C-alpha cells in the first residue's frame, strides 16, 4: 500500500470511519505486536497493550501531523502504555508472568531453544527500560535506529549505544562471544 493510500485511510479514520481504521490496524499490527511481545515477554499482555495503544491512537489521530510514519506514532503510544503498565506492576509479578508464558506459548520447541528463550528473557528483565525497548524495536529490523529514537524520544546516538550494549548482554546470556557492531 502506498503512502497516499495510507494518508487517505487516515483521513477517513479521522472522520469516524471504523473500516478505514481497521485497515490501518491490519497494516501496522505486526510491528506493534512484535515490539510489545519482545519488550514484555508475554504475548497476552503484549496484545492487551497493543489493543489499548491502537484504541488510543484512534482518539488522538488528529494530533498525528505526518512528520513521522503512522507506525512510529502508534509505537510511541504503545511504549508509553508499556511504561505505565510496568510502573503499576511489581517486577516480581512481571517475571512470573513471563516465565508462565514461556511454558504456555512454545510447548513444541526443543529444550535447548526453550532454555535460550528463558536466558534471554532474564537478561532483558535486567536491562533498563529504554535499552530494552531499543532492542525490542531494532533487533527484528522492523524499525531503524532513527525510528526507534523517535519512538523513545531519545537521541540517535543513545539508541545506537543501547542496541550495541544490549545486544552484547543478550549474546552473553546465550554464551555467544561479543561481536563489534557493523
Amino acid at each position, binding site marked *: 500500500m502506498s503512502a497516499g493510500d495510507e494518508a487517505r485511510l487516515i483521513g477517513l479514520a479521522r472522520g469516524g470511519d471504523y473500516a478505514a481504521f481497521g485497515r490501518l490496524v*491490519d497494516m501496522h*499490527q505486526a510491528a506493534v*505486536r*512484535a515490539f510489545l511481545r*519482545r519488550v514484555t*515477554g508475554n504475548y497476552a499482555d503484549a*496484545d492487551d497493550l497493543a489493543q489499548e495503544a491502537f484504541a488510543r491512537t484512534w482518539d488522538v489521530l488528529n494530533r498525528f501531523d505526518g512528520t513521522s510514519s503512522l507506525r512510529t506514532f502508534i509505537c510511541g503510544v504503545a511504549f508509553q502504555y508499556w511504561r505505565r503498565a510496568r510502573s503499576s506492576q511489581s517486577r516480581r509479578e512481571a517475571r512470573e508472568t513471563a516465565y508462565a508464558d514461556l511454558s504456555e506459548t512454545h510447548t513444541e520447541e526443543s529444550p535447548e531453544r526453550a532454555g535460550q528463550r528463558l536466558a534471554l528473557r532474564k537478561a532483558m528483565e535486567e536491562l533498563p527500560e529504554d535499552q530494552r525497548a531499543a532492542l*525490542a524495536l531494532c533487533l527484528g529490523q522492523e524499525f531503524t535506529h532513527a525510528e526507534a529514537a523517535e519512538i523513545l524520544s531519545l537521541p540517535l546516538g543513545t539508541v545506537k549505544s543501547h542496541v550495541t550494549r544490549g545486544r552484547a548482554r543478550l*549474546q552473553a546470556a546465550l554464551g555467544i562471544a561479543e561481536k563489534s557492531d557493523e
Partner: protein
Amino acid sequence: MSDDLDLAALLGEAPRTPDPGFRFDVLSLTAERARRREA
C-alpha cells in the same frame, strides 16, 4: 544481522499475517471507549 533476527525471534515472534481477531478486538475497544466518553 541474521544473529539479530534470531535474537528477536527468541524474544518474541512477529505475527506473520494480520489477525482479524486482533482487529475486531481493537475496533470493539475503540467503540466501547467512545460510548463511555459519550455516556
